[in-house]
């Protein structure tokens, strides 16, 4: 009887044999190697699968060696800047957030590949196109979203009489009061990290109906009653449920505090549960995820699409595109996503009910969160000005100053002044 492993091997060999002439024809005969660079994944298996399975398979098929350069978490933007500025380095680079808009001119139009992939795999979700399509051209191919959700201790919530994760911010505040009294405060980053701060602050801000800037990118909207309500709530949420230290946290701190059993709830990617399963199984057993609570004007999440872009300095773009076509073929992409342990929620219709979601039900909220995910600075344009707002921590510091005791009026006025300068608005 044929085992599953044997079946897969035979299938792959057959697929390879069928595709090899096509790929070899598409790729330039002179290309011997393709370089890729990405932020190293929290899921080791995801990187390992690329290096130990996908790259050797492609080399076997085409003779082209595919290398992978991992970049430490939080360092990819710097690496991408050096690649774009020096016009050298790996040809295929991992991008996140709104980077395709920033590096538009340094990236090749991959609309043809995106079109083919979308056609084969049930079409791309509309929302991801906001971040990867620049001037109607696809500048990157998304493989998945790193969602930021509520991560909480089920045992401590139960002790506090909360059996189901609160559905709105006010109920979460009420639960947090009890939990803090029980010695289990919350810990949401309000410092200058690169992801876990914006990961919950923009959703909170939007859920109260507040906006930084209008769709036109010229009308600053932050000075509003909705913003004031969000700021007032955040101040109460901080004072009544959290520890002061969160004001100085960067992205590593909430993971450390949660796994150190210092806090009972935070906003994070699934990396906390992943690490807990590996190193702290007792904590993993009592950890779960939930969607961000909703506010008076809805429920939101932050969009952080992870994609691969083909850099303009690549000498053989035909060969690089052939590799991308192969990688984004269901036979490869599907297996790669499975190796990612549902850390990346794909944006393709055919994967909405992918078996990867069945392995661990606690990851399902990450799939559900896609529908309500928005890019930073939404609904404003997500170009240069949005990045400047993020780099200057306008929203984060507005909330942080309110939490440390500044008046709502003052913090909003400061943020409005900053945004008017950034967006060159009156």
């Amino acid at each position, binding site marked *: 009887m044929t085992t599953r492993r044997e079946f897969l091997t035979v299938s792959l060999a057959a697929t390879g044999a069928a595709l090899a002439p096509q790929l070899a024809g598409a790729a330039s005969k002179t290309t011997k190697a393709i370089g890729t660079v990405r932020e190293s994944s929290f899921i080791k298996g995801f990187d390992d699968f690329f290096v130990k399975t996908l790259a050797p398979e492609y080399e076997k098929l085409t003779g082209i060696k595919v290398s992978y350069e991992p970049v430490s978490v939080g360092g990819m933007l710097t690496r991408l800047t050096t690649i774009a500025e020096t016009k050298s380095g790996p040809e295929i680079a991992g991008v996140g957030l709104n980077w395709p808009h920033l590096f538009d001119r340094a990236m090749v139009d991959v609309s043809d590949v995106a079109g083919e992939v979308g056609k084969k795999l049930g079409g791309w979700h509309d929302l991801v196109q906001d971040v990867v399509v620049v001037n109607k051209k696809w500048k990157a191919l998304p493989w998945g979203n790193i969602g930021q959700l509520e991560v909480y201790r089920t045992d401590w919530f139960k002790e506090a009489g909360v059996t189901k994760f609160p559905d709105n911010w006010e109920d979460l505040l009420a639960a947090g009061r009890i939990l803090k009294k029980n010695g289990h405060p919350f810990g949401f980053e309000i410092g200058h990290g690169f992801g876990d701060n914006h990961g919950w602050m923009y959703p909170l801000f939007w859920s109260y109906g507040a906006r930084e800037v209008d769709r036109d990118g010229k009308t600053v909207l932050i000075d509003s009653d909705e913003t004031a309500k969000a700021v007032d709530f955040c101040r109460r949420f901080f004072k009544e449920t959290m520890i002061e230290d969160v004001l*100085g946290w960067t992205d590593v701190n909430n993971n450390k505090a949660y796994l150190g059993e210092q806090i009972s709830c935070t906003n994070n990617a699934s990396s906390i549960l992943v690490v807990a399963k590996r190193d702290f199984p007792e904590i993993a057993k009592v950890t779960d995820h939930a969607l961000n609570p909703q506010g008076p004007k809805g429920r939101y999440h932050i969009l952080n699409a992870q994609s691969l872009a083909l850099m303009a300095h690549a000498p053989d773009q035909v060969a690089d595109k052939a590799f991308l076509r192969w990688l984004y073929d269901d036979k490869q992409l599907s297996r790669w996503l499975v190796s990612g342990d549902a850390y990346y929620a794909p944006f393709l219709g055919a994967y909405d009910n992918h078996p990867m979601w069945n392995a661990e039900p606690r990851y399902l909220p990450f799939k559900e969160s896609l529908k309500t995910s928005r890019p930073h600075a939404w609904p404003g344009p997500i170009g240069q000005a949005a990045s400047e707002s993020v*780099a200057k*921590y306008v929203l984060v510091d507005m909330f942080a100053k309110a939490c440390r005791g500044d008046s709502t009026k003052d913090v909003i006025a400061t943020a409005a002044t900053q945004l008017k300068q950034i967006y060159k608005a009156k």
Partner: protein
Amino acid sequence: MAVGPASLARPAPVAGRPFTLKRVLEREGVFSWLMLTPGVLFLLAFVAYPFFYGMVLSLQDRKVAQHGVFVGLANFALLTQDAVFWQVTRNTFVYTAVATALKMAGGLALALVMNQQFRGKNLARAFLLLPFIVPTVLSTVAWMWILDPTFSVINWTLVHTGLIRENFSWLGNATLAMVSIIGVNTWRGLPFYGITLLAGLQTISPDLYEAAAIDGASITQRFWHITMPLIKPVLIIVTMFSVIFTFSDFQLPFILTHGGPANATHLFATYAFEIGTTAGQLGMGAAVALAMLPALALLIVGLTLYLRRD
């Protein structure tokens, strides 16, 4: 004795030594330039070029991966309207002034102690260098743990000795965060002061102290009238270097706080990085970085003139 025509035809030997590469290299003018060239090339490539390129960038509206457009001093003009920039300026001056003063006082004290004769002196001198030897990133990560509210050894000690009731939030409170980064910078920079001043102290002849002691000078008088005047040149040089390093510090605040909370620990270097890299505005980022130049230049010129006058 008759002289053969062949020996008459041979040219007379040239006065001095024959021309060889070795001889050329031995010339002082050639040899000194030969030794200087690698250093000069290094400085040109890794100091002068980036510096002048930074100056060019600061005068451009230069977005990442795009061509720059010359805008003159517009970036600097925009910075003057940026409230965060002024906060960053204040932070940098406070950070540099307090950390340098602490390092100067602590380093001098350390050098004076290390200049005494005691058992294990050499071992103590080796340990003194440890904070300076350990890579900054590594030691700063260790400080992250030391300053963590829950795991902090400082908090644990203060609570268990009854000095405080609740844990301090070393990096979450704006004032304490600045105190913390100044403290860590002082810890890291003390050995530089200590060892350099120790070298200065060892050049002072013991005869001077003996003569002063015979004349009845107290320890304090000997310190102010012998030690200080003689190590002043070294002190000024080391202060100049220390101010430059501290003013442009990046790794320490970037790792510990990333400029937070609410910009309370943002310095020129961290802010320039955020604007240049995260926001992708290389021109504006360069302008922020260059904003520290006038203050540093004034200080260096001032200290150099003071040194020359003496």
